[in-house]
């Protein structure tokens, strides 16, 4: 292991470079398009000849994009919060308690993790119309919580199993109240797992498209990925390539920030539930 020849280093470096390039080129292409002028969009060169921010001004001036962005953030945060709370409760039970039906719960969440969402769209569309949930925030939050839960239960039960619960007892022996033992010993140990889960669930909500276009009809609840679909060009005959690219870049930025800051956590969260489970 310690023997690394310069040639090996060059080999690994080249392989790394290929992976990084393949991952980034499509993203850089969107960034480049978003800074091109409408005339230069038809120019196939990778980078713009002259840079403009007019595409960004155009999308950030109107409510066509700002309002969906607010919806995306609001719906994503509320769904994430609810999913993490419910998933923590269930994961605690799975990791710490013995009760019949545990296997069923794990089976159910696995089933939902792999569920074909389109199979729900037709019946849910009709149910949401009947319950007046169609085109509202709760109309998206409820399905997002349901599909975030399996992810959360898997990730969190893997995390909760690793917590040394004897510490709780030790703290009580040392005179801590149950509340103190929980808030000062257990909660800090559980927090990283919950943050990881929250990131994964939020990414799912932020990404979701099928429910977002199916269960919304106006700007009041349409999320950002769905709203891009409805962008129009400056005239009937222009394709709004620039504004769409700018909007795509804006909704991609949070993802890149998450990935840069929480790379390790995202990796451990994604793999803990799926493979160990």
């Amino acid at each position: 292991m310690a023997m690394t020849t310069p040639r090996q280093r060059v080999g690994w470096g080249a392989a790394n470079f290929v992976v990084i390039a393949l991952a980034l080129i499509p993203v850089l292409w969107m960034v480049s398009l978003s800074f091109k002028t409408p005339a230069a969009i038809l120019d196939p060169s990778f980078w713009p000849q002259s840079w403009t921010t007019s595409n960004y001004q155009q999308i950030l001036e109107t409510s066509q994009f700002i309002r969906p962005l607010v919806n995306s953030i609001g719906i994503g945060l509320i769904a994430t919060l609810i999913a993490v709370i419910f998933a923590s409760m269930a994961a605690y039970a799975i990791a710490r308690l013995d009760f019949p039906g545990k296997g069923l719960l794990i089976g159910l969440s696995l089933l939902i993790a792999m569920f074909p969402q389109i199979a729900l769209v037709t019946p849910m569309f009709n149910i949401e119309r009947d319950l007046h949930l169609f085109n509202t925030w709760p109309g998206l939050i409820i399905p997002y919580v349901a599909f975030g839960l399996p992810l959360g239960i898997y990730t969190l039960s893997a995390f909760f199993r690793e917590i040394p619960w004897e510490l709780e007892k030790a703290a009580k022996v040392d005179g801590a109240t149950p509340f103190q033992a929980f808030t000062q010993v257990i909660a800090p140990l559980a927090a990283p797992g919950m943050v990881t889960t929250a990131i994964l669930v939020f990414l799912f909500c932020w990404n979701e498209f099928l429910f977002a276009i199916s269960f919304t009809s106006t700007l009041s609840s349409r999320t950002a990925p769905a709203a891009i679909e409805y962008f129009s060009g400056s005239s009937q005959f222009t394709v709004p390539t620039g504004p769409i690219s700018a909007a795509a870049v804006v909704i991609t930025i949070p993802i890149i920030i998450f990935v840069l800051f929480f790379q390790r956590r995202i990796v451990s969260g994604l793999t803990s539930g799926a493979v160990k489970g």
Partner: protein
Amino acid sequence: MSTRSEAAAAPAVKKPAARSRRQLSEGARAERNLGWWLCAPAVIVMAAVTAYPVIYAIFLSLEKYNLEYPQDVKFIGFANYASVLTSSYWWQALEVTLIITVFSVAITLVLGMALAMLMFRTLIGKGWVRTAALIPYGIVTVAAAYGWQYAWTPGQGYLSAVFNYSAPLTHQINAIIVIIVAEIWKTTPFMGLLLLAGLSLVPDDLQKAAKVDGATAWQRFTRITLPLMKPAILVALLFRTLDSFRIFDNIFILTAGANHTGSVSILGYDNLFNALNLGIGSTISILIFICVAIIAFAFIKGFGTAAPGTSLNRR
């Protein structure tokens, strides 16, 4: 469980064993109730959003129900199934879905394995590779799909030369290739990460021992790494196959299903929002659900004891 084995081991001391079983079941009952209460909210939400609509869809699929004629709703038995299963649209969409699933999953598996090896073994820049790989995973599929669409557009995209400036998205086979490329780009990192976790469970000693015995790198990979990774590979394949089978976002943006490139999910969506036919739409939903169940069942048969969930149970 311990009470049962104690009782079986010492049948002579029946009475105290029975009493302790009752006492234990007091505590066990409290624990059981707490377990159920803690799981209840999650179970209720998941059942309300999946089980209930599926059952409702079964009823809808047996009805003639078009939103354009809301007065004319009636029970028609399996007529909807007959019309979907005899329609070329359904089989066409199923064929496209299966082609996309098979090719994208197979290529993703190979590339994902290479990526996992790279992330596991690379000597420099490990963090950089992982961060870069997570970007396609995390990016909004719709945003990436627009990038791909413009990249292939003749005269405007950097990739348009690949298809000789011929607008690949207007041609069935080329469009499906473009869709598969977009899927592979998006999903290889996830596959790579799942396989990486499996790879890290392969004991290093075995590799070293084989190396000492003179096994080549390829032999070590096929004889040691792959067999030991089989459970991780099967889990990753199951996840990816079912995820790929429900492909929607990429096709919706890239072709919207034009020129016979629609998947079953696109068909279901179009049926609801263009034809407004709840009966036929629900029939398609149920058929997709059955397809997914068949795929999952086949995989779990193949898993044997390595099925996901069983090991979670065991621990």
